[in-house]
């Protein structure tokens, strides 16, 4: 999951270690009322977005909640202009707002079902479907615009 959100092998390794260290250190806060894997997913998402925020702050203080980045080396728009449609879609995902991006990754990269997604993101299960619907609409529009 982290690789698909960063597209960078080294960063993925670094953040993966961070995820497990954060989980280890924060284990006392794990209430045990959800599965460990959903808890780990939450930590992983937080770790990735935290990393991106830090990178964004270092670059030009662009809010990562509105513009994502990861492996685009600071210029996602330029990166998104690559010819490959596959790459284009991937980079459009990076440009999605955080709340769309995380739900999309969990559902279509990680194959989490609605119930797991609801637990991981802390949202009602009914919201999962409507948010996924809006996510795909948004992504479709962005891809169409670029093509």
């Amino acid at each position: 999951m982290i690789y698909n959100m960063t597209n960078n092998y080294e960063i993925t390794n670094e953040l993966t270690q961070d995820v497990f260290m954060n989980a280890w250190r924060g284990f006392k806060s794990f209430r045990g009322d959800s599965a460990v894997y959903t808890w780990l997913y939450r930590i992983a998402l937080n770790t990735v977005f935290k990393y991106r925020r830090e990178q964004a702050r270092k670059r030009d203080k662009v809010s990562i909640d509105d513009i994502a980045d990861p492996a685009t080396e600071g210029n996602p728009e330029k990166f998104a202009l690559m010819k490959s449609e596959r790459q284009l879609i991937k980079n459009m995902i990076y440009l999605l707002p955080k709340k769309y991006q995380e739900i999309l990754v969990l559902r279509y990269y990680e194959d989490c079902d609605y119930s797991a997604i609801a637990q991981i993101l802390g949202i009602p299960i009914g919201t999962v479907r409507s948010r996924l619907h809006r996510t795909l609409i948004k992504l479709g529009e962005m891809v169409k615009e670029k093509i």
Partner: protein
Amino acid sequence: MKNHKRFEELIQGYLDNALDNKERRDLEKHLKSCEKCKEELKRKETLLQKLRLTKEEIQCPDYLIDNILKNTTQEEVPVIISSAKIRWRYLAVSAAAVLIIVSTVLLNIDNDNLTLTTKKPQEIQKTETLDEIEVLKSAEKSLDKEKVEEVGDARPVVESRLKEAKVPRTSLPVAKKDFVEGEKIQKFSKELAAPKGKTTMDFSQSEETYSLEPPNFKIERLSSKISESALAGGIISEEDFKETRFVFPEEGSVVGKDFEIVFILEDPDEAVEISLDGEKITNYTKDEDSNVIFIGSDSIPPLEEGLHYLSLSTKGEKNITFYKEG
């Protein structure tokens, strides 16, 4: 229009295979008569196909796993004890964890070592070393079963043997080796048979010793019935668990110090009983839906100097006892 929006969302559920029967029937019926929704379904379907192609998978490198294991096992950790199916490896982790939590956070101790020692029954009998642990072992071994029943508790006998011995605690064997879960115990025991690096003393082949850094407590397994399969991670019988203890061999005391011990139960609904020195503790923290139990220093009465026994039992099936020496 409102109805149409509902069907758009149903399309999403349809593609995610997350509709109930009624929703599915409603949508399929609607799709027969609504071209717009048909197009929407096709559009999303195509996008999803392309989206799924963008997923990339990479192999997690071995060194990353090693790093994570190394880093996490070197830090203080919470305790994991499965009360439903107690496994030796859990116990090993939990024992270490409890000690680490209590020690590194709360005690004024030297930066020494934490040692986990297990001995097989015939090997215990062979042991002649006069240190505190050995005395406790031999005391336990020599306890007459009937006598214990008569007294009701083996601890006074053990304590008295301990006092008689007056063995300096510094005589405890020490070895440095990263702590691992029980499943790897045998592997490490072989490694320890040929100690290297920081190891500071020789081990007889009858002794399996593992240590954690930096605390300096000793975890002692007194059971005389540890089977090979149990050591390898199998389920251990109740008998095997009767004497598992945490020994705090260092000078100094936890008396008056804050500490926290964490148990994690496999089954959140499992009824457990926790007692300190035979007195039931009810003032521990356990959330309704949680399988985590916190026992803080505020959960128990002030501790005086001496041996203390913390035990966790589940409906008389298993009983894990931790001895704490102030």
